[in-house]
């Protein structure tokens, strides 16, 4: 884990005890973790902080997992969401046409499987992000701006997409 940038994970679940242990394990493995206990809290936190992957429980009081991930992605379009569901609700989630989640996992989720999913979600996020960065760069280069303008615009893009 040491030679890669740390993955920033947002956890959303109303089971506080579960998140307590899950965060501790993830932190110990070198991830950056933020635990939130409701969809509302997660949305609030995501206004100020950037994340790579969100792990969201489907069934929560207040706004549910599907709605939470929708709002999170409105703010951070590249954020990948893993939705944890009780049995049977996978179909419910899929049937409602809200398939924007990176993956649906059955609860209780196996820790090793969760780590694999988080890693894959992160890879996807980076790929998408880099792709769009490249497109934007190409756009700017052909926009007819002066050399100085281009340099400045690309510098902005670096900041927006978090690419050094």
């Amino acid at each position: 884990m040491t030679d890669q940038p740390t993955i920033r994970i947002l956890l959303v679940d109303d089971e506080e005890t579960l998140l307590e242990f899950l965060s501790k394990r993830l932190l110990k493995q070198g991830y950056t973790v933020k635990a939130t206990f409701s969809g509302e809290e997660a949305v609030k936190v995501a206004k100020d902080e950037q994340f790579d992957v969100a792990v969201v429980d489907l069934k929560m009081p207040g706004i549910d997992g599907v709605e939470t991930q929708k709002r999170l992605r409105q703010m951070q379009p590249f954020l990948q969401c893993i939705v944890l569901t009780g049995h049977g609700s996978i179909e419910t989630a899929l049937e409602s046409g809200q398939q924007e989640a990176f993956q649906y996992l059955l609860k209780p989720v196996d820790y090793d499987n969760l780590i694999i999913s988080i890693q894959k979600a992160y890879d996807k996020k980076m790929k998408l992000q880099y792709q769009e960065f490249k497109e934007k760069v190409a756009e700017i280069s052909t926009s007819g701006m002066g050399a100085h303008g281009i340099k400045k615009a690309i510098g902005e893009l670096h900041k927006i997409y978090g690419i050094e």
Partner: protein
Amino acid sequence: MESNNSLQTELKRVKQELAGYRIELHQTRGYLQCILQSSEDIIFATEVDGMLISFSKGGEKVLGYTWEELAGRDIKDLAENPLLFQEFISSSLQGGVTTHLDLPFRHKEGGSIYCNVTLINLTNREGQRVGTVGVCRDITLWKKLQEDLVRIDRLAEIGRLAAGVAHEINNPLAIIGEASGWAGAVIDDAEGLTPEDRSELEKAVKGISEQTKRCRNITHQLLDFARRSAPEKTEFDVHTLLKESVGFLKSEVKHTSIEIDFDFMPGPLLMHSDPRLLEQVFVNFITNAIHAINKDGKNKGRIEIQTRRTDSKVEISFTDNGIGIPPENQQKIFELFYTTKPPGKGTGLGLPICQNIIKKIGGEISFHSEVGVGTSFTISIPLS
């Protein structure tokens, strides 16, 4: 002369009357005959002692006997429970009223025929009882449908209950899993533990993790029963999964002489599918094989599990030398609720669920069976 004349007239009148009665009698007999020949019900008449004197064509068909086989026999011997039937007849006779009851008869070839039985006292002109008439309608199919409905209802209810409980247990189970995972991580880093203590703690934490996984499998299977979820896809080794499935059934095989042989392709056989669903199928097929052998009472039971791989598919077959499936039952084995086990022992759900699962992951089931030789089931599933 005159009295002679009136006598003649009287005789003529009587003769005419008699002819009228004869016609009437003929018509009535024809009418009765028609009913007895064409009704699908069992319509019978007996002497006072229960000896059969008439039996309808429909009755012959329903119970599988011919009239020649039945003439002179006691009606109660056709009932599944002759004593009960006798009691029923006696009680119906006392009040002299018509009585109804549902009772099973026995088919000539075996098997129960449930009938709704109506008994009527046959009396002569003096009002004395001379016999009994019975009309019995075959309600076997109706009865079976009714039982199936009750069973489906009960299963659905059990499913709902199980799903509810499993759902509630899943959350604490998740916490136990994470807590034990965290404990394991802490132990890894802990200083000042003696090697013995460390190994004891590691063992304990591993035990908690493994048992949590086991519980999770159970809750998922229960939830599966209530509602089938979409298959998951992971890579796994079929050979390991097969061996694990056999491992689950150790206790079933323990006190029998059944040998389970693996005829596997060399090396691991990796595929991309849903191992949890497949495991359920494997366990079901192996269980069926064990039952087929136990039923046969063979001293040397043998189950062979074979794997083969083609370009895009994996074929797994389970072959037993058990009792075999008679040809007439081979079509029924995938029917919901079809079972040859006694009530309460088999649900008749195993194979339909297996078929459902295999269909879901894009595979096929085929089988070959011979009575007294054994049965071989083959499932063929896409590699990914």
